[in-house]
């Protein structure tokens, strides 16, 4: 019985960080109409930032802050610079550019840090009893942090000036420009925030997953699933699906073998996409 609660909680932890990565992905998708293949690599870089700072003898939270700022600002703006000349050409080219960046980042990480898996100590040890098990406090902290960040992001988008401008640019960037919105600045914000969200997720999850260069790959695919299955541009839907995905996979693996769970989940998503595609299509949809 306890195993189920623990599994559910674990799923919540994974789902929460997945929601963060997916939120960043959705932001970038909203303004550019592409999926950023390098999102998982920003996640990975955030994790490495924490490991690096800890190695220097500093606080975990400093590492997190450094990671978010460095990856968000530097990574995000670099990404924007690289994609900027392509924005009027095909979307496929931008997709491929992000794929190229992903490959390069993975290789660079392997070169600089080595391919081995590096453990990271959680900043908060201690467990609280849940039923008969002692559950790590840090995991719950991660969920709480993710919730706070996501809520803050939601409020920002809804009420803050730049948040409203961001939504406007995402929906009709030409008209936004004609209304005086500083479109380039808003794009930059989207890039920085999108990358920063991935980085913070990576940093938060580092103690759970350890750090290695291909850390980003799995979460990339899951994040894509969340964003597309949640309905492109639907932030709340994405958050919900992220949590659901985390919990379902975690619960599922207590009963069924790990790989089978993934296949089942993928199968469900595939069916969902097909059904939605059928329903959304009129008679002459090409």
């Amino acid at each position, binding site marked *: 019985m306890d195993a189920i609660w623990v599994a559910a909680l674990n799923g919540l932890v994974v789902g929460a960080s997945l929601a963060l990565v997916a939120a960043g992905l959705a932001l970038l998708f909203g303004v550019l*109409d592409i999926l950023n293949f390098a999102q998982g690599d920003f996640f990975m870089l955030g994790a490495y930032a924490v490991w690096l700072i800890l190695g220097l003898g500093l606080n975990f939270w400093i590492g997190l802050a450094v990671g978010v700022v460095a990856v968000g600002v530097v990574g995000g703006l670099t990404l924007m610079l690289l994609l900027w000349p392509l924005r009027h*050409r095909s979307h496929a080219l931008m*997709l491929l550019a992000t794929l190229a960046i992903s490959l*390069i980042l993975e290789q660079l990480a392997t070169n600089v840090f080595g391919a081995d898996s590096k453990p990271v100590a959680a900043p908060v040890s201690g467990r609280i009893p849940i039923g008969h098990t002692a559950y790590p406090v840090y995991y719950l902290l991660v969920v709480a942090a993710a919730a706070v960040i996501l809520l803050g992001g939601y409020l920002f988008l809804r009420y803050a000036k730049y948040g409203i401008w961001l939504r406007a640019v995402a929906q009709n960037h030409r008209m936004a420009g004609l209304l005086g919105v500083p479109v380039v600045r808003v794009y930059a914000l989207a890039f920085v925030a999108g990358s920063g969200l991935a980085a913070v997720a990576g940093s938060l999850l580092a103690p759970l997953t350890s750090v290695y260069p291909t850390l980003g790959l799995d979460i990339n695919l899951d994040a894509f699933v969340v964003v597309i299955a949640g309905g492109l541009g639907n932030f709340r839907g994405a958050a919900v699906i992220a949590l659901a995905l985390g919990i379902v996979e975690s619960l599922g693996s207590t009963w069924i073998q790990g790989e089978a769970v993934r296949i089942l989940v993928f199968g469900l998503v595939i069916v969902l996409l097909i059904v939605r595609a059928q329903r959304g299509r009129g008679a002459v949809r*090409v």
Partner: protein
Amino acid sequence: MGAGVAAERPARGRSDRERRSRNRRLLGGAAALAGLAALVVVPAAYGQFLPQRLSDYLIFSLPALAVGLIAGHARLINVGVGATFGFSAYTVAILTQHGVLNPFVLMAASIGAGIVVSGLFAVYAVVATGLEYLLLTLLTTSAFFSLPLLFKGFAGGENGLRVNGAVDVSFGLDPLTGNGFYWLLCGVTAFWCALSWYLLTSRMGRVMVAIGRNPERASAMGYSVRGYRVGVTLYSGAIAASAGWLYALAHAFVFEDLLGLPDSVNFVLYSLIGGVDYILGPLMGAAGLRYLGEYLGQHTAQSQFYVGIALLVVVYLLPAGVIGGVRRLWELMRRSRHEKADQVLRAGRRDRRLPAGRRVRFGRRR
């Protein structure tokens, strides 16, 4: 509304263009034949490990061709070709493990199995496009990767599966010695290239190109866009499946990585960097990138980095792939020899404002 702009095109100009096009095709055909002859004769004469290396390139160029056909003409990025490739390879291995050693049966069964898998992708092509299609293929390929682990007893799990039967399964041709197997590969590759070229230059092929470029208009003209997409997917599935069959024969061993995403993504990269609008593009891309990988693998451990750089070069400078870039260079050089009027006429027609919007456009821009 007064004098229109329709200029009288001189009769001389029209047949001139026809003649140029026919010349170009004859030249292309001659070059292809020469290339094929060289491919067949030279490595066999040279010996050493060259036939084996080229065998590897040939085998991996076929799934790249499959991806290229879908991407270039159905305008869909199918990451799942690797699943078809790996599934066929596994079919060969599993059958031989159960005593089926007849080479013809193995060929038919594995290619058939691959076509069944690509049937799944054909369903996707009917119900989705763009990003959703991409995601469907991504998920499916990831799911396939887990299949051998799930059916450990049957499919060997993490350890992979051997292909039994020695040279009986490959028509008596030994992949490791002699040139027979290499020539088989050349034959299969040439077959697919020739068939694809024939189909593409036929009326049906030109319809497909039109569909790929503007599906809405083609559909309004009465063409069944879905039908053509299904057709392209199944056809290219056959190509990828035959590559899987050949791989199993060549290496006598299959493993789960063949089914996974990284290999699949590689096929996409080969075809994109080579050039999806041309048949030889994916082949060149596969050979070039695999050679690069081997060369770099000996000197550094950085192959992914260089692939990434190559991809960036293509994206920024050569969106139609290397072959596309070469061709554009060729046309630029040729154009400078023609009169200005011709140039201005073509330029005026090609200049159209690009609509701001969400259409996914690929490769060569018209």
